[in-house]
């Protein structure tokens, strides 16, 4: 699968100097986050979560900062989450969509980025259907911080951070946990960033789904030694019951209906029968197993409705925690800049 190999090599950003959270300018993926830096984000998010639960949800931390959400793809929760996070921190948040903007007149991403930079914006939150789009902006804009809110099938680092936070909040740790990611891993930027995140934090990651939807060569990309940390510990399992044995965390991924037409699936019925995460299949999981989904869900396809809304589900908690994580990232990227 040359696309994935291409991503592996192309996604080595030269624009990032790693010096911990205090020196960070962009959030593009979790591959350049150290374990320590991830912990710092999770700790700050705990402080932000407290603000989120106050009667008066407003602090002046980012007064005078401007955040633009630049979305070239549909989104409900990620965009609203960034907007709420920015507003709670008193930043001015401007939402921009591809539809209705100069992008419809054919303006390039780079020119749109330069225009936004020229307006004195501090942070751009970008979602784009093309993998790597946020890297392009990060390489060419020198006065704006870039946060990747999902690029193609490549990465969704803020989702992965909120997932790490949600698991740590519920189970108290990340190290040594068995985390099973089920479904269309191949086309999932959420899964890809989560693999980096959980593996770096010492969890055991198991990817499960039809072999056509698993990035089988991701773990053994050509030219990368098989023991390359931290991905060497990631396992692949096509049998859901085997994968779920002893699982502490099960993350179901959205299965897009288009995949069936693309020849990745024999039929939706077969997928449901073999890979739908249901209460009945959790028999051999940990008794405290927690159920996650990045949303939006296809209830009755990748996850059963009863499980999605049952006591083990933390799906709504993920949404709440998403705001706290994005507050922490916006704060650390833009507080004090230029002061």
């Amino acid at each position: 699968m040359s696309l994935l190999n291409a991503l592996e090599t192309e996604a080595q950003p030269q624009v990032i100097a790693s010096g911990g959270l205090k020196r960070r300018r962009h959030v593009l993926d979790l591959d350049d986050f150290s374990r320590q830096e991830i912990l710092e984000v999770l700790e700050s998010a705990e402080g932000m979560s407290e603000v989120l639960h106050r009667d008066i949800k407003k602090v002046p931390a980012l007064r005078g900062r401007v955040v633009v959400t630049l979305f070239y793809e549909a989104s409900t929760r990620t965009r609203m989450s960034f907007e709420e996070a920015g507003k709670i921190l008193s930043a001015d948040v401007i939402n921009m969509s591809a539809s209705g903007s100069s992008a419809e007149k054919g303006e390039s991403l780079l020119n749109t980025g330069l225009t936004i930079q020229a307006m004195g914006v501090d942070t751009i939150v970008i979602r784009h259907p093309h993998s790597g789009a946020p890297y392009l902006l990060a390489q060419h804009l020198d006065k704006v911080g870039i946060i990747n809110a999902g690029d193609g099938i490549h990465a969704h680092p803020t989702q992965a951070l909120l997932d790490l936070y949600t698991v740590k909040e519920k189970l108290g740790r990340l190290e040594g946990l068995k985390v099973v990611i089920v479904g269309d891993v191949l086309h999932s930027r959420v899964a890809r960033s989560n693999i980096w995140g959980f593996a770096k934090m010492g969890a055991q990651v198991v990817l499960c789904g039809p072999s056509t939807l698993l990035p089988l060569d991701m773990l053994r990309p050509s030219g990368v030694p098989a023991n390359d940390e931290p991905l060497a510990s990631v396992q692949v399992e096509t049998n859901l019951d085997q994968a779920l044995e002893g699982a502490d965390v099960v993350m179901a991924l959205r299965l897009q209906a288009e995949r069936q037409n693309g020849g990745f699936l024999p039929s939706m019925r077969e997928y449901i029968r073999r890979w739908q995460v249901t209460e009945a299949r959790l028999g051999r999981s940990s008794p405290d197993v927690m159920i996650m989904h990045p949303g939006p869900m296809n209830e009755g396809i990748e996850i059963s409705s009863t499980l999605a809304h049952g006591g083990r589900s933390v799906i709504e908690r993920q949404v709440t925690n998403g705001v706290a994580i994005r507050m922490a990232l916006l704060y650390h990227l833009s507080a004090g800049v230029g002061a």
Partner: protein
Amino acid sequence: MADRQIMNDQDIRRALARVAHEILERNRGAEDLIVVGIHTRGVHLAQRLASNLTEFEGSEVPVADLDINLYRDDVKARMSPRIRPTRIPVDIQGKKVVLVDDVLFTGRTVRAAMDALNDFGRPQQIQLAILLDRGHRELPIRADYVGQNVPTAPDEVVRVRLVETDGIDEVAIVRVEE
């Protein structure tokens, strides 16, 4: 870099005991008091003060932790500090709040703390207890209770170490050479 010790563990213990007595004297008891520590070392000093107050007065005095970093006006470029949860276990509306911090310097932290408290309610009064006042105020702020006054040069660094965070109780002046 020569360290000059200002307070040892006994000095700190006595200062906190005296400050606790002063708080009780000024407020005629511990009724309606809440002790609020500013992260990080203020939190530990607040806990010690509250346990002194509880011991001297025989009634439990509530303690709260306050993180003021989201209210600062002096965050340096790219030095955004870690944010910790604020925990205020009781309603501060109409209460007498004693803010506690280790060092009083420019006064900017205290200003931020007063802004932060306002988001939780309107206390009847805010008082300020400080382990060490080193001068050089940039705002019209003064402490109501002071462990010790120490004249310092602006380029000197006051280092407060507490058993809870550093394994030792000590206040020292450290001159940092550029």
